[in-house]
């Protein structure tokens, strides 16, 4: 079934097909339509919707339902995401699965409700206290918001980790045609072993994150880092017209779509341009990126250069050599223009 759907609604469609048991949310532009759809659709199929009293409550409800082995999610934008950081640290530290969709708006502070990608570091580097990461997926279309949310649940339970779907206002507000998933996912396996469900079988199960013994806590930290290393197999990227490309744009999410249009325009005028687009931001598709070290590279993003900094770090970690990486960016809710992106490439060839 192909439907025309708003990105924010596609999130809920993906969640339902994933088997999402509960949505906990609090209104915030430009993410509110996710809660609107969840409030209507989840009860219709016998699932739970609660409008929480604040984002702190939302994320702790996700934590509670996740601790019970249920598929739970929330969705928000910048300021709400900031309020959720403590809860995300608890989820990561305790090994509680759950999904958080961030329809990024422009910051800092109240900022405005238009598109930015400035929550990159917050999402990818941990964001809360302690040495942890959430897994971060980077959709760029309505279809990918649906599919990404669905996949986020599977990953969250496979790794017992919070997964952030790092979207933005443009994706949330746009309407595109989208294939609905064909079947509902099976419920995640192995949950009974750890979930606290108020049953005889789960009576001995426990979720806590306080470890006064420093050696024990160091061990838990080491386990977490091993888990993050194991996640590397999930790293993925999409490459577009990259084989013979002299200039390669590096971009994720909505910026990658702008760069894609620039690639086509450049190719039409004889400039060999291509696009490298991470589909996962944590883990980062480092190996694939490092294969591009000999190209002319231009990062396109809607933040101060947070993504570029990470790209540079990935090169340094991957091949101990950092090529020159140009930056085309806008901030404050202004979309990068195709013209500016194409111009940056022309200057390089």
């Amino acid at each position, binding site marked *: *079934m*192909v*439907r*025309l759907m708003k990105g924010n609604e596609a999130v809920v469609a993906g969640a339902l097909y994933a088997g999402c*048991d509960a949505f*906990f949310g609090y209104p915030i532009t*430009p993410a509110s339509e996710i809660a609107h759809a969840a409030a209507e*659709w989840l009860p*219709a*199929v*016998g*699932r*739970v919707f*609660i409008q*929480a009293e*604040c984002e*702190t*409550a939302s994320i*702790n*409800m996700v*934590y*509670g*339902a996740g*601790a*019970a082995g*249920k598929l739970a999610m929330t969705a928000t934008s910048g300021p709400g995401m900031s309020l959720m950081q*403590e*809860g995300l640290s608890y989820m990561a530290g305790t090994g509680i699965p759950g999904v958080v969709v961030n329809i990024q708006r422009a910051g800092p502070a109240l900022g*405005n*409700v238009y598109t930015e990608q400035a929550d990159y570091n917050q999402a990818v580097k941990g964001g809360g206290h302690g040495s942890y990461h959430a897994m971060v997926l980077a959709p760029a279309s309505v279809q990918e918001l649906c599919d990404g949310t669905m996949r986020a649940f599977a990953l969250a339970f496979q790794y017992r980790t919070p997964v952030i779907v790092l979207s933005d206002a*443009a994706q949330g*507000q*746009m*309407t*595109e*045609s989208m294939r*609905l998933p064909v079947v*509902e996912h099976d419920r995640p396996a192995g949950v009974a072993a750890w979930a*606290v*469900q*108020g*049953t005889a079988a*789960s*009576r*001995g*199960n426990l*979720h806590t*994150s*306080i470890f006064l*013994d420093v050696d*024990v806590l160091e061990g838990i930290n080491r386990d977490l880092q091993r888990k993050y290393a194991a996640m590397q197999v999930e790293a993925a990227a999409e490459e577009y017209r990259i084989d013979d490309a002299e200039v390669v744009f590096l971009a994720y999410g909505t910026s990658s*779509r*702008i*760069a*894609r249009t*620039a*690639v*086509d325009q450049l190719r039409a005028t004889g400039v060999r341009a291509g696009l490298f687009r991470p589909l996962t931001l944590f883990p980062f598709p480092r190996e694939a990126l490092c294969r591009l070290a000999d190209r002319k590279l231009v990062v396109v993003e809607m933040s101060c250069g947070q993504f570029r900094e990470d790209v540079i770090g990935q090169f340094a970690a991957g091949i101990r050599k950092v090529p020159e990486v140009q930056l085309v960016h806008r901030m404050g809710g202004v*979309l990068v223009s*195709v013209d500016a992106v194409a111009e940056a490439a022309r200057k390089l060839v």
Partner: protein
Amino acid sequence: MSTKRTVGMFESFDRSGRATRSSHYCAGCGHGILHKLITEALVELGLQDRTVVVSPIGCAVFGYYYWDVGNIGAAHGRAPAVATAVSRTIPQAVVVAYQGDGDLAAIGFNCAVQAANRGERMVTFMVNNCTYGMTGGQMSPTSLLGQRTLTSPQGREAATEGHPLRVAELFNQLQAPVYIARCSVADTKRIFQTKQIVRKALELQRDGKGYAYVEVLSPCPTAMGLDALASARFTAEQMEQVFPLGVIRDHSTQAVPLPPPAPACSVPDFFARYRDRDFPAPVEDATYTERRMIVAGSGGQGILVLGLCLIEAGALAQRFVTWYPTYGPEQRGGFASCALVIGGRTIGSPHVEHPDILVCLTRPMLERFLPLVKPGGVVFCDTMILGPDAPSRPDVRIVAVPATELAAANGSSRAANTVMLTALLHTRVTGLPEEAILHARDATLRKKPSLIALNRHVFDAGLAWCRQNLP
């Protein structure tokens, strides 16, 4: 806590990391007594296998050393949110949120009062010892006036630190709670009363009857800087002057368990309800030139609907489509515009910087967007916004249509967008087949079917005008 084994608690508290039978609580602490009362009641009521305890941050953070039931540790103040989620997603569970006065009445007060106000099926036990025990004895919202703590070294002052917060009495202002009580573990007589109250609150949970709040006055000799006896006396005498004991509310006989949820449909069946919104899958078509368009005007002119109608026609014609509206405060300011792209392959940027086609119903929007139109592009405007001083460009084709006038003359001044649709159809600028446009014209009114006939009438009048007046 004594070393005598309580049924429902672990025999040896191995979870503390040591095989021990003594608890981590200080001598004379009230927590251990309440732990016992809760577990005894759970066992007596046969609830051990149904129970999930959500433990707080505070001295009871290690409650899981003792309780032989499912346990989830919550962030500071968030036990009610965690408990809410467990209770809603596992309806048969008996859910206990165990909190202290700092955890509940300070950092987590909103979560606590909101869960109580929603009437969640759970019991909250708030251990009130007038202080933050775990962090060494700071002032809490329930500290008594004049009470010296690490953060009220001169004694709590009403003028600057407020009065002790009486949570039970505050919760008694809410409609939803079924049971509200305050009790104490300061001495044997009081412990006996507390036992009854704890049991009652858990019975209500067993029967799924709703929210119960039980506040338990409890000695904390360590933070109070008193010996066990003096601390118990303080709890019984001084605290009770501010926090009187008793059952404050008992609606247990009126309360009814939630009815079982209505039968729900499957997810695929749910989406199949909207079969009329199915579209064929888009197909790659290199012969179709991508159209990038902007439709602009003001709120109430059907700007966004016209855009949606066009992408719906595009989707029907198996094109790739994207529609991106203005939203947020800009929309409330009276402006309305949307960008849309219809193409023969995957669409890159959803943002239309330089439209091939601009449809404009107000002058300010024409002034804003005309300069952006691609050379060779087409601009459709309402005749009434043009005039001798209207902006113009020699390198774009401007098509003037008396859209508002025609719409009004045919019964709906709000259907100027429909007249514009006829101009788009007549001039064939979108490259979309007529059937798709006609179908989309009606389909975008699927939520207001009563308007379809009128809209068709306006459409016919518009098309007739276009045939007569446009090349």
